[in-house]
């Protein structure tokens, strides 16, 4: 059972996200009116999240930096075309996702590695000798697409519909991938806990 302080921490984080989203909407509107300071603030607010998303998607700090820069440039150039400021998170993440896809396509061509399978890989249970389950390691073993989906859902608190728009997949697929990721993690934790008992 999660303790109360963790729950409080999560609620605080959620409230913080909601505030940031509202603030972003206001910054988008101000930016569209030509306010450069608002645009800078908007980019500062979001660039770290774009980087973290790209990092999870691409598993490379260098690629993530390049992709984030390209995505931010694209956001700057096209911000005026955004009709509804409320949709800024999904619209901007969609740009980052497209840049990530472009990078992966280029990367596949360069390395001649084609990985079209979208299955979640088998995750080995952590060493039974360890007393603490390192969930970070288990997450690290997940496919980048699932990791980025978890990032959008848990860290950015985006809705299933928004994630579906960003990843260009049906909402049902988002739900099933979330369910599957949770199930994989729960199974590994249960197995490890059983072994330790």
């Amino acid at each position, binding site marked *: *059972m*999660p303790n109360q302080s963790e729950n409080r921490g999560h609620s605080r984080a959620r409230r913080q996200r909601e505030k940031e989203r509202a603030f972003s909407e206001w910054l988008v509107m101000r930016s569209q009116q030509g306010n450069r300071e608002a*645009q800078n603030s908007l*980019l500062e607010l979001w660039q770290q999240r774009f980087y973290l998303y790209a990092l999870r998607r691409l598993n490379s700090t*260098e690629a993530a930096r390049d992709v984030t820069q390209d995505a931010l440039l694209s956001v*700057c150039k096209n911000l005026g075309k955004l009709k509804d400021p409320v949709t800024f998170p999904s619209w901007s993440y969609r740009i980052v996702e497209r840049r990530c896809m472009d990078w992966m396509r280029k990367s596949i061509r360069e390395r001649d590695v084609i990985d079209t399978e979208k299955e979640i890989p088998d995750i080995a249970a952590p060493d039974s000798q360890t007393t603490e389950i390192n*969930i970070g390691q288990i*997450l690290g073993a997940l496919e980048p697409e699932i990791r980025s989906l978890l990032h959008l859902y848990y860290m950015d608190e985006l809705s299933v519909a928004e994630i579906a728009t960003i990843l260009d997949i049906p909402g049902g697929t988002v739900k099933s991938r979330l369910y599957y990721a949770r199930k994989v*993690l729960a199974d590994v934790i249960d197995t490890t806990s059983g072994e330790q008992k």
Partner: protein
Amino acid sequence: MSDIDDKIRQALNKEDEAAIAELNEQAGLFEMIGMSLHGKQAWMTYYMWILGFVTFIFGLYALSRFFASDDTAVQLAWMLAINTCLATIVVIKVLGWMQMTKLETMREIKRLEMRLLSQD
């Protein structure tokens, strides 16, 4: 599932904190080398590494032949080969450094482009 949700959230948070700490660091030597092994011009880096290795091996062989020979004319010939190998390795290293700094400069240009775009 809420327990799992919290664990996922905590793990992602830890990952984020580590990544953010790394984000502001300047590109180190190994990072710069890593950068030169990716991208459109990666073939050039690989080509230079392979050429450098082959030249180095040939240089060692020429050195061993230089010490094995008693004939001065032959020794001079091997010395010339060693000299050529050394010069080639130096040129390769210089080109390699240029390639690495070029990639870092391109990255900085992109950053500047973004800053200018947001300021004009």
